[in-house]
C-alpha cells in the first residue's frame, strides 16, 4: 500500500501553493524558441494545456464523488491546481506569442467531444473509473510530455514554471496511486459485479467513444512533434508497475482494464487502432458548431496572473 496519510497530504498541498503572479513572465529567454520549433511547440502547448484542463474537470468530478472529506478537499485542490497548470501553460504560450489576443487556443473536435462528455456525465461516474483513468493520463503527462518539453525548450522560464508544475504533479500521482489501491479493497465478486455494471453504463460507453479517439489523436500529434514512442511505453510501464505493485492495486478491476488499454494505445500495430482511427477520421466530419458553445467552466481559463 502506498502509505499516504491524507491529512498530512492535505496540509502539504495547502502549504505548497503558488500563483502566476509569483512568476516574472517578461524575464529574458523567450527568444530562445527557434522559428522552426515555434509552430510545433504551439500545437504541443495547446494540447498540453487542454489535457491539464480536461484533467482539472476530472478532478472536480472526483471531488464530488469522494466520500472521505479529506480526499474530497484534496481533489478540490487538485482541480484548482490542474487549472493553474493550464493557466500557466497559457501564460507561457502568450510569452512565446502563441495566443491570438485573449482567445483560448482552439480545442480539436475530439477535445470538444471529451469536454462535452465531462460536462454532462463525469459527475455520474463512480470514483473507480476516473480514479483509475486520471493516474494514467497524469503519468503520461509527467513521465513523457513534460520531460520531452523540457528537453526541447531552452527558455529558462519554461523550466522554472514546469519545476512548479512537476512538484504538484508528483503529489497528484502519490494520491492517485493511493486511491487506486484503496479501490482494490473489498470483496472480489462485489468489485466485479460493480465493474460489469459500470462498463454497461451508456454514459461510460459514450465517454469511451470520446476518450479513445482523443488519445489516438493526441498520441499522433505528440509523436509528430518528435516525441519518441518509447517515452509513452515507459510511461505505460510505470503506470502498470506502480499501480500493480500491491495486491490491492492489482485487484482493482479498473487498473487492469486501463493498463491493458494503455498498452494497446502505445502499440501502433494493435488491431485496436483500426476502429479507433476510423473514429478519429469520422470525428473530423462532425461540425463543431453543432456542439454549441463550450461549457462555461472552460471560459474560466486565463493567462492573466491577476483578475
Amino acid at each position, binding site marked *: 500500500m502506498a502509505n499516504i496519510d491524507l491529512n498530512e497530504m492535505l496540509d502539504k498541498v*495547502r502549504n505548497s*501553493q*503558488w*500563483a*502566476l*503572479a509569483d512568476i516574472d513572465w517578461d524575464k529574458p529567454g523567450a527568444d530562445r524558441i527557434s522559428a522552426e520549433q515555434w509552430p510545433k511547440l504551439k500545437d504541443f502547448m495547446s494540447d498540453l494545456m487542454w489535457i491539464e484542463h480536461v484533467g482539472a474537470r476530472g478532478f472536480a468530478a472526483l471531488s*464530488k464523488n469522494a466520500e472521505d*472529506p479529506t480526499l474530497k*478537499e484534496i481533489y*478540490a*485542490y487538485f482541480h*484548482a*491546481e490542474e*487549472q*493553474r497548470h493550464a*493557466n*500557466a501553460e497559457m501564460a507561457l504560450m502568450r510569452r512565446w506569442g502563441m495566443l491570438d489576443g485573449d482567445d483560448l487556443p482552439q480545442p480539436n473536435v475530439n477535445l470538444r467531444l471529451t469536454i462535452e462528455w465531462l*460536462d*454532462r456525465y463525469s*459527475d455520474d461516474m463512480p470514483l473507480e473509473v476516473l480514479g483509475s483513468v486520471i493516474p494514467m493520463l497524469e503519468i503520461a503527462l509527467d513521465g513523457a510530455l513534460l520531460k520531452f518539453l523540457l528537453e526541447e525548450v531552452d527558455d529558462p522560464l519554461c523550466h522554472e514554471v514546469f519545476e512548479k508544475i512537476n512538484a504538484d504533479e508528483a503529489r497528484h500521482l502519490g494520491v492517485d496511486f493511493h486511491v487506486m489501491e484503496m479501490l482494490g479493497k473489498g470483496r472480489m465478486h462485489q468489485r466485479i459485479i460493480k465493474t460489469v455494471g459500470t462498463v454497461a453504463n451508456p454514459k461510460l460507453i459514450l465517454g469511451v467513444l470520446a476518450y479513445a479517439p482523443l488519445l489516438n489523436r493526441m498520441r499522433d500529434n505528440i509523436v509528430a512533434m518528435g516525441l519518441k514512442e518509447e517515452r509513452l511505453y515507459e510511461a505505460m510501464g510505470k503506470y502498470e508497475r506502480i499501480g500493480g505493485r500491491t495486491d490491492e492495486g492489482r485487484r482493482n478491476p479498473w487498473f487492469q482494464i486501463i493498463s491493458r488499454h494503455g498498452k494497446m494505445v502505445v502499440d501502433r500495430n494493435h488491431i485496436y487502432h483500426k476502429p479507433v482511427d476510423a473514429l478519429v477520421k469520422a470525428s473530423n466530419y462532425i461540425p463543431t458548431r453543432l456542439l454549441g458553445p463550450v*461549457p*462555461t*467552466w472552460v471560459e*474560466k481559463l*486565463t493567462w*492573466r*496572473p*491577476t*483578475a
Partner: protein
Amino acid sequence: MAVTDTETPIHRVLIVGAGFSGLGTALRLQQEGIDDIVILERASEIGGTWRDNTYPGAACDIPSNLYSFSFAQNPAWSRSYAGSNEIMEYIHWLADAYGLRRYIRFNQRVQGLSYDSEEGIWTATTEQGETVRARQAVMAQGPLSNPSYPNIPGLNDFQGRVVHSADWDHDYDFNGKRVAVIGTGASGVQIVPELAKQASKLRVFQRTPCWIMPRLDFRKPEWQKTLFNKVPSAQAAIRKGLFLAHESMATGIIWDTPVNNALERLARAHIRHQVKDRWLRRQVTPEFKLGCKRVLMSSDYYPALQQDNCELITWPIVAINENGIRTAEGIEHQFDCLVFATGFSVPKTGTPFPVYGENGRELGSEWEKGAQAYKSINVAGYPNLFMIFGPNSGPGHNSALVYIEAQIEYIVKSVTTLRSLGVKAMDVREDVQKRHNQHLQKRLARTTWNSGCNSWYLTEDGFNATMYPGFATQYARQMKQVRLEDYRLVSSTGQ
C-alpha cells in the same frame, strides 16, 4: 471564585445582554411584578444581533408575525419578512413602551459571573469596573454576538477596506468598487444582491453552497395592518397559522423523511428555474442533505450571481495579500474591499466569560468537550443561573423567538416559585441533567444535522450542543412546567 461583598445592593434578577432575550425576560418579569432588575449590556445600544447586523439586505428568515413576541405583537409590520431596521424599531418600541430602559446599564462588558453558595448570590463584574449582585442571573448574551473571521493566511495584510457583515461600515461607498464577498451563508446571500447593484465588480467566494428556498416576501397591505390593529385576535390567528406551517417543516428539515426529499426537490427546482448555466448550477447545488446546515431563503441571490458584474468563485482560497485574494487556480483576484459574510463564532464549547458555580467549579472547563444543560436553561452546580438560547435550544425550522419565549416563561415561573416557596436556591440535579442529555443526544443522532456535513451546529468532534431535535411545540411543552422534583432546593437556612 465567590466574592463576598456586603456593600453592593442585592437585586432580584441580573440579566446579561439587552437583545431580544434580555429585554423579553425583563418585560415578562416586570409584568409579574418583579422590577428589581439590572441588565448589563456591553454596547451603548439595545438590540443584540439586530443592532450589529445592519448590512444591506439584512432581514429575518422567519415571517415577522412569527418573529416577534406573542405578548407584544406589532400589527404594523410593513413586509412579510421584516428587514433589520424594522426589527430594530420593534425592539426599541418594546424597550420604550414597556419602560425597560431603566433597567439597562450600557457599556458594561461582563468579564465574569460567580456564585456565592453561602448567600445564594450571583455577582457579575464588568471590564468597566462595575459589580452587580443578584439572587438570580440570566445569561441572555445570545449565541450570535461575536463576529467570526475565517482562518485565512495574510488576513491582516490587505491594504483596502475590510468590512464584516456583523459590523457594517455605513460610511464606505461601494459604488464602482471592486468587492469580494467571502461566505455564502445566511448573511452572504442577503448581502450579495444588494452589493451587486453598486459594485463595479463583485466576486463571491464560496466554500460550501447552502440549500436555498424561494422567499415569498411581499409588502403588507394597509387593510391588514388596520385589521390587526382593530382585531388583535386576527393577528394571533395568522401567527398560529404561520407557526403550524413552520412546525410542519420540521418533518422535512430535522429528519430524513420523504418530506425532506420533497423539500430537496423543491430547492433543486428553485436552482433549475433561476440558474440557466449547467456549471453554475453544479457550483451552487449542495452535496449534503437538506437541513444538515441551515436552510436559507432568497429569491434574488441566484439572479444576482448571474449579473454581468458578478462572478461566483469556488476555487479554494490560498491567502489574502495586500491586493486581494489568491486562489488555488493561481490567480490573484484584486479588490478595493473585502466583505466577510462569515457570521458569528457560535460557542459550542466553553462560555463567553468565566462562570463560577458552587465550590468554585467553572462552567467553561466543564463544557470543554461540548456544552450541556437541563432543558437548555439550567446547569447542575450553578444554582439560580438561567440561560436563554443555552445548549440544544436552536431551531432549524421555526422562529427562534418561540423557543426564547418558552425559556422566558420558564425563568419567570422559576423566579416566582423561588419567591413563593421562600427558597434560597434551586439547582438542577446532576442525574436529571445527565438523563436529559443522554435522551437528547440519542434523538440528535437520528437528525439531518448529524448526517455527515460540517456545520456550525457541531463541535469539531461532531458533538451537537446547538440544536433541539424536535418540534417547537415539544420544546415549549417541556418548558411549561417547572418540575421541582428535578431540582435540589436550598432553603434560606442552607438546607
